């Protein structure tokens, strides 16, 4: 009770500080420089993302905070100290006793997904040590299953490729890969490989996609188990996607574009990334009215899809923040 009360007072005092300091912070914010890329009006993009600054509950949620931080940094902007602190504090408060992080303050169930997102936010703000990283390792390790995969949370224990990727990603970020049973996890992940190359989100029937291919490749690399044949087949799969094949009839998707680039880099084929395709796709997703990016052609922009677009632009060198390596930890 006492601890809760203290924490509340601390949070309230900090909130008051943020409010009082707002005018000064606004001036500091105005000094940020936009390294504009000719194709996009990053001033508008910045204004679009900064809409959330006007919300009294800023930074709102774990994902939204990550959107804000990544996007502004990717555009070469500085985040003022007040807001950085607000984000760090909110992220700290999202960490639960078991070490996992929640999607927002209304939720008390930590999961590996939001833990991964929270860690990236802190890494971007150079605030890795603001939270208890030992607990993070314990939390991620606790999600390990007998099949070699990892679950989503203590409540949702079933393994999947995605949750295994997030766990390995998190464990690598906190120097905790020793908690992984490497042989078992590699075997589990390889079970998602598809005949045509690449990896899919499900075992057995179903096709590969770029997201799963990236996730599997990341895990295999992290565990030192990437082999030449797997890498070669992954490239063969990716070559048929609209992210490398200009003649593909498949409708490109924002997330898949990002993961196709990352997958190529994971399998040491970064030179195969077709930057022109990616850039043209981003141009088609760009919403001139507000500077945001949509998830699909013809769709409106959201903060999440705008952030993903900036991740892609970072990966192809069209955003000057220079943060892809930090983001990938």
């Amino acid at each position: 009770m006492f601890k809760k009360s203290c924490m509340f007072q601390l949070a309230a005092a900090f909130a008051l500080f943020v409010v009082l300091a707002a005018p000064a912070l606004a001036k500091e914010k105005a000094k940020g420089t936009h390294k504009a890329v000719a194709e996009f009006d990053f001033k508008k993009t910045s204004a679009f993302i900064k809409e959330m600054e006007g919300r009294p509950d800023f930074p709102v949620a774990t994902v939204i905070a990550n959107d804000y931080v990544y996007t502004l940094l990717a555009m070469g902007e500085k985040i003022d100290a007040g807001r950085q602190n607000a984000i760090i504090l909110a992220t700290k408060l999202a960490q639960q006793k078991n070490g996992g992080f929640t999607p927002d303050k209304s939720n008390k169930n930590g999961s590996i997904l939001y833990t991964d997102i929270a860690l990236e936010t802190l890494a971007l703000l150079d605030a890795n040590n603001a939270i208890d990283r030992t607990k993070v390792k314990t939390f991620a390790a606790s999600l390990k299953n007998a099949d070699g995969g990892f679950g989503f949370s203590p409540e949702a224990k079933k393994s999947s490729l995605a949750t295994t990727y997030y766990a390995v990603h998190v464990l690598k970020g906190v120097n905790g890969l020793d908690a992984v049973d490497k042989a078992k996890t590699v075997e589990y992940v390889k079970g998602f490989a598809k005949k045509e190359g690449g990896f899919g989100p499900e075992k057995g029937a179903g096709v590969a996609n770029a997201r799963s291919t990236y996730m599997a490749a990341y895990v295999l690399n992290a565990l030192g188990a990437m082999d030449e044949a797997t890498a070669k087949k992954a490239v063969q799969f990716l070559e048929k996607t609209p992210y490398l094949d200009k003649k593909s009839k498949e409708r490109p998707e924002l997330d898949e574009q990002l993961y196709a680039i990352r997958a190529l880099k994971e399998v040491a084929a970064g030179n195969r990334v077709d930057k022109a395709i990616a850039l043209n796709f981003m141009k088609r997703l760009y919403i001139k009215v507000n500077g945001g990016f949509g998830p699909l052609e013809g769709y409106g922009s959201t903060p999440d899809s705008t952030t993903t677009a900036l991740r892609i632009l970072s990966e192809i060198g069209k955003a000057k923040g220079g943060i892809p390596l930090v983001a990938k930890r």
Partner: protein
Amino acid sequence: MKLKKLVPALALTAAALTAVAAPALAGRTTTPSSYKVVAWNDLGMHCACPTFAGFLLLPPFNTVRAQVLGYGSNDPVIIDSTNAGTYGVTVSYAMADNTEATLQADPYFQQWITYAPKLFPGFVPVSGGKVQGLAGNGISGNMTYDTNLKDWTAVGIPAYPLVDANTAKNIMTDPLGGANRNPYPMTNVYVKNASGTILAQTSTVTPVAFGGCCSCHLSLAAANGYPATSAGSFAYLGKMHGMNSSKIDFNYLDPTGDGTSGPIRCSWCHWDPAMGETAAPGLANVWPNYVIMAGAGFTKADVKVSQYSFSDVLHRFHSQSTKVLTQYDANVATNCYDCHPGNNVNCYRGSHKAKTALWCVDCHGNLNQRTAAGQLTQPWKASTLPSCTAASAGANPAFACHATNTVNGTVYPTNPSLFGKFINGRGHKGSIKCQTCHGSAHAEAPSTMTLDNTQLSNLQGSTSYSFPAGKDKTYALGVCVYCHPTKTSTWGTPPHL
């Protein structure tokens, strides 16, 4: 549920949403010398599916409402079903963009025509060559007076997004790869005398759009070995449904016993107020001779009415599924447009959107909050909807809602129930619907979409009207002289009581 029982309920639990006293302006006997009419769409957006062969989420079903004022003295008379008869006037509507020809030639709408009789036994989607909606209203016809809600209503008109000849209006992407469509068809509303002469008319947006479901579900189907088509998507959804505790893979359900699977209406088992239901009818009551096809992993004993509403299972599943969160959208609890019409349609487009960073979740709560608060167990009930003065139960708005008795700084006597639930609430002598002056929910005036503002721009477009700085004719109806001939022509905030 039989169609006859279904239809009266199709006003979206209208009675439950009614809150305030009878109109004070109704019942005067002086014959009006002129009339004015204001119309709106009840919700500000309706969804409809692009295909109907597999199962039905939502049918073409749009509701237009209107209030009619009669003039002859200083204060107008509210025209209701009683005095309309006395004065010999009718209120009618006609869709301006959806036509009989284009609807019946539309391949998606043709699917509706084909499968609707199976989805709603007894329903005839085309009668006498004319399309009709589930409540019996076609694309034109007379409006009826809703004595509960105190407005003229055309319930369930079969509005559908169209491929418009004016391509600039085709802002909505077809997730199945077809031509872009216009999700904002217009409907004209008329007041006519007994000889059919138009005494007053207006035009309102009748928004209807495809949701965002296909944008994830086509990929999901492909990732699981099914074709990336609507049919493949339905097939995999059936399989997924079969993997939950119900065991029912609805690909194995043949409702009519004609030897083919589907189509399935989700609300047969999961009650859905959007279908006008207060309880799920159960498949056996709708199609007593339904067949479970060979190879099914369930029996008739498993085909039960669910205790969960359709809204509940749909929202809860998506916000809690680790597959959705890790493979599609970690922020799905907040990203309403993943499913609701945001496909360049921008369902939420009203003045709230323009003025602040207010999001859907500030009024309704995010999916985690809505689930935790039990909102979805009783969807569409007045108790779960936000009002002007408070967000929905369980929501945690970042912004303060409107004070109960202050409008733009002017303090009015407080009546806590005055604002009720915006979509069916009334104010201003207890007679005028909130939406009459403020426009449709989610598109409150001034809307960020020009088309929404057309009606108010026309109503308040007289050059003799003046507006204070920062306001214009697109703002909520506030020029007193528009309704009261002897009052000011300067825009202001009318009394809300």
